[in-house]
């Protein structure tokens, strides 16, 4: 529980901090921290249930701070968590290059999912991807930050794990490959 609360708090802080810094930095140059934290959950957490809850909760928080439809980022992050979890079990996402490439791919998939869900649920109101170049540059920024953020989050998660409650949410750094 302590670990889940800590990880959610960290993700929320990343989201709030990013929103504050976007006053000075164009969004196309900023990494998508919410997405990276979701990816880190998929790699670092052994329990898929806990990771899924956290990804959905962080998606709901993104909906609060964004102009998206309520529930839109919950849906998108649940799907992305599933994709990331599937990939983490088969690919070596702990290495710099695969992690970066996968994070960039995940950012592009997120763009496609936001576009598709907007087109479907907002009646075409959000249907046009207005800035493909912005989406690409944000995917690149996300790729560059993937590895440092994953390492930091894993370190914190393991620390909370060792101080926290034993149970199914143990971190197993070897098993997620």
């Amino acid at each position, binding site marked *: 529980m302590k670990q889940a609360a800590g990880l959610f708090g960290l993700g929320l802080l990343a989201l709030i901090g*990013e929103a*504050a810094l976007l*006053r000075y930095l164009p969004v196309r140059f900023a990494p998508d921290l919410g997405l990276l934290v979701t990816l880190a959950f998929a790699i670092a957490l052994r329990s*898929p249930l806990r990771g899924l809850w956290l990804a959905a909760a962080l998606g709901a928080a993104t909906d609060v701070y*964004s*102009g*998206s439809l309520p529930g839109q980022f919950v849906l998108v992050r649940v799907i992305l968590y599933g994709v990331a979890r599937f990939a983490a079990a088969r690919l070596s996402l702990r290495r710099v290059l695969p992690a970066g490439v996968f994070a960039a791919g995940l950012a592009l998939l997120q*763009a496609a999912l936001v576009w598709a869900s907007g087109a479907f649920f907002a009646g075409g109101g959000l249907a*046009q991807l207005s800035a493909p170049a912005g989406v690409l540059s944000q995917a690149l920024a996300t790729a560059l930050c993937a590895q440092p953020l994953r390492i930091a989050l894993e370190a914190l998660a393991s620390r909370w794990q060792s101080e926290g409650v034993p149970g199914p949410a143990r971190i197993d750094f070897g098993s997620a490959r």
Partner: protein
Amino acid sequence: MAEVQSRVRLSFLVALLVGIAVVAMVAERRAHQRGRRDIPVWVGPLLDLAVPLQKALAWPIDSARRIGSNYVALLGVREENEALRARLARLDEENLQLREALVASGHLERIAEMRKDFEMPMLPAALVGRDVSPWFHAALLDRGRSDGVRAGMPVVADAGLAGLVVATSHGASKAMLLLDRQMAIDGTVQRSRTHGIVRGRGSAVLEFEFVAREADVRVGDRILSSGLGGVYPKGIRIGEVRELLGSADGLLGRARVEPAVDFGRLEQVFVLLWRGPVMELLYSEKTGDLGDAAGAAAEGP
């Protein structure tokens, strides 16, 4: 056996979360036709939590920028002061002449009465956070319900219209900026009084749609809010026509509009403590089926 149980639980959780997300999106869609409420209870604390954190995070950057800009501002202050004094004297003279003319025509008293009707209270607010997603253009303001801010109130900056408050908590509010694709404002060309709809495109420019037949729209024309949509007051600057895009079907003309507000540098805004009749209906406590009213209003998110 344990693994099967775990898989069943996981599938159930995925279905539950997807179901909740879909229901939330469909409910939001329906809220455009039926009266909408302000945010759910759990959203308020999240908005309130963000404001002090974002202010604390931005404080060192804001302080450094303030010191830098104060120094730069001091460099040309003498020349600027002289130019402003000369301009003030010219405007004083012009003002005097206009007052004389108004008194002579007997209109001054009537204009003073009209001004009382048009004045509306404004609340200064700081923009503390921007949208974390590149597809949307929302902003977090540091004023909320405790300051009198309500969903449906327009947000303006010194240069013109900036957006609309869409959600409020005790000490914070979320505003949708004009650039967002969900935004539409009933606008009018100041020179020719041509009416149309200004839409956000999700990028740095807006689009003005108007009935092409007999329309008189030129590059450089200033677009103001018309007040007809029942969401924004009349006469607030929206932007300037930069390019005419022509008409695909011969019916609707389109023009690219540069917003009056520089959204990239937007830090300080004002919330108009006023709600238009359509927003009053949509956010009122006693909401019935407002399909017609919401459908008739072209404006809003």
